[in-house]
């Protein structure tokens, strides 16, 4: 096989892996949009906040330390203990559930029945708010997540495949972290599907997504379902935050991964979980291939806009995305 072709395959594989990372973020959007029609821009900041909380809890950092020190003139920073990873994750999930409850109780309960754009704006307000709270609670320095996730290219795959091409082919590069992310994503999607198919609350969730009024009339508590959905989105955000944070450390820029998820959503449709996955894969492969083949000719760094243009082209032919519910307009 020619080396160029093998490299094309390598770019493809890595594009798929990158796509999985985008899907992880997009999943959270879909969950909330499906159940409540809210386009939750704060999903990226939720990932940042969840990862910050996890890192802070593990390190035994005192929340709001800077504020407390400034107000009371004290000098506290650390509790002096380290929390094991699993316990810290559980605690973080707890925080995200409390957050979900608070969001529902103080914000969206008062906005029921508003136009989608108003709800969207409210989530942007929420994003600002949460970003500020995250900074106040844990400080704005870069934190390292010591979860022991594997990093780096897999030597084994590299050695196994190195012989396939010529001398200038060095074997396929596949990041171990990406492989872990793929496995995690598969488990996450499988359990989400299992949850929504086979459990009482999952079925209630689907009922709410289908029709609020009908769900209410058979005795499903909308309030509870929405808290549940926000908690699930918080959990997905934590997973996305861990995966992305393992690469770059936990810092402000983590909240910008939301922008990577938007074209995925457009492409896959706002209401479809399989759409988020397939959309993510298509965007990942598409932008990597474009950068690989056309990028060098036009100066590179094309990924940011190409994802959107790709999604735009698809939308012109399918205005509801690939997997979205067909938009039926009646007069």
């Amino acid at each position: 096989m020619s080396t160029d072709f093998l490299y094309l395959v390598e770019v493809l594989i890595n594009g798929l892996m990158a796509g999985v990372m985008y899907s992880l973020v997009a999943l959270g959007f879909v969950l909330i949009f499906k159940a409540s029609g809210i386009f939750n821009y704060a999903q990226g900041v939720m990932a940042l906040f969840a990862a910050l909380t996890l890192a802070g809890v593990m390190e035994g950092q005192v929340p709001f330390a800077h504020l407390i020190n400034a107000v009371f003139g004290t000098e506290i920073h650390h509790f002096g203990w380290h929390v094991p990873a699993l316990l810290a994750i559980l605690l973080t999930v707890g925080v995200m559930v409390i957050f979900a409850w608070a969001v529902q109780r103080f914000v969206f309960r008062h906005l029921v029945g508003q136009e989608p754009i108003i709800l969207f704006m409210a989530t942007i307000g929420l994003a600002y708010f949460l970003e500020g709270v995250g900074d106040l609670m844990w400080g704005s320095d870069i934190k390292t997540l010591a979860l022991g996730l594997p990093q780096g290219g897999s030597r084994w795959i590299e050695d196994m495949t190195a012989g396939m091409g010529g001398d200038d082919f060095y074997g396929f590069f596949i990041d171990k972290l990406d492989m872990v992310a793929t496995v995690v994503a598969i488990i996450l999607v499988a359990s989400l599907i299992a949850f929504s198919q086979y459990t009482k609350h999952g079925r209630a969730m689907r009922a709410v997504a289908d029709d609020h009024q009908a769900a209410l009339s058979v005795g499903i508590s909308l309030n509870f379902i929405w808290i549940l959905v926000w908690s699930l989105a918080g959990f997905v955000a934590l997973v996305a935050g861990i995966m992305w944070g393992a690469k770059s450390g936990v810092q402000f820029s983590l909240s910008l991964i939301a922008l990577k998820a938007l074209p995925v959503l457009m492409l896959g449709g706002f209401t479809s979980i399989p759409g988020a996955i397939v959309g993510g894969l298509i965007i990942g492969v598409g932008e990597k291939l474009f950068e690989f083949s056309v990028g060098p000719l036009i100066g590179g760094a094309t990924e940011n806009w190409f994802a959107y243009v790709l999604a735009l082209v698809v939308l012109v032919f399918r205005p509801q995305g690939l997997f979205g519910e067909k938009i039926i307009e009646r007069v």
Partner: protein
Amino acid sequence: MTMKKLAALAVTATIAAAPVMAELVIPDLSYRTGPYAAGGTPFSDGYQDYFNMLNARDGGIGGEMLRVLECETGYNTEKGVECYESTKGEGALVYQPLSTGITYQLIPKATADGIPLHTMGYGRTSAANGEVFNWVFNYPANYWDAASVMVNYLLAENGDSLEGKKIALVYHNSAYGKEPIRTLENLSAQHGFELTQLAVDHPGQEQKSQWLQIRRERPDYVLMWGWGVMNQVAVQEAANIGFPMENFIGNWWSGAEHDVTPAGAGANGYKSLNMNRIDANLPVFDDIKTHVHEAGNAAGDGTNVGKVLYTRGMYAAMLASEAIAKAQEIHGVADITPAMMRDGMEALELTAARMEELGMAGVGPEFSVSCQDHGGTGLGIVQQWDADAGQWNALTDYIAPDDAVTLPLVMEDSAAFAAENGIEAGCM
């Protein structure tokens, strides 16, 4: 020029005439929030701590107390404008914005208002030509010097020849990142190495394509112009593809502790430039700790002392305070104006003996500023990250850039600026 001079004089006159408090006002346009907070915080801590230390230990400079005005910009140009406007009326002596965007924005403004601007190792490189940029100083070094120092270092490593070598430049796709390209292109023609340019778009969270390309093309060296999250991801990705870290060299804004720690052991061996030497045991840090931190006046949370960017912020403050002392000496008054400050900066001369006296021996190279040359010597060291010890070690002494390459570029760019803005080059 006459109009400008008149305007500058008028502004200076109003500032001098206004009942300014007898204090030396130093604005600190810091950013402790936003995407670049991790870099902005230690720099600002160092900058403020040094001035506060001078106040507590020496009673200011020349008997005149210093007042640091901190203003948060969040690396945002519009906030930077607001900060500039709100502090300039207080009699600000010198601005140090630590942001390319705000620097470009302030160059014409500060020139018109007659307030010097010190863009230490960042901002507009051609401001080194003091005849065009009378009010802008970028000593001790600039980006084109940095590019040349890197190449000179590589030349020394390779027996003075880079013929046929492949060098890749990974850069932040912004004004800042594009700075070294022209210099490197000239150097590549001169030394016969092949240059590949890889742009990374803001913020730089996703760099797989760029690093896969590096892996395919196997360049001998990778140079990086990064800032913010781009640095951490690049170091991580380089480790991931198994690129030999000792052949990966960042510039001086890509070589702080927080850039390498997230990658853990993988970052071991990563190199970067530095325009100042770092040494956590400098006597000056003891002074800062006793006079500032123990008095409870630490800027920030006080945990950054001795770090790369903290040291650089402190170094910047030292350069500013030396210039103040120089200005006081030239004009014979303690309460100097921004115009006098400019004269002080232009006459600044830093010797090894003076740095030793200040308790920071060898922190920077020796250099002197003149009317023609606002750029200093452009020397830089190469440092390497030791992941086990968790510290940067200096590998080399100060390396000189190739002025024959950078100087014509500086002249060309500043001449273009002068033509575009109708500036007549000349000393003030």
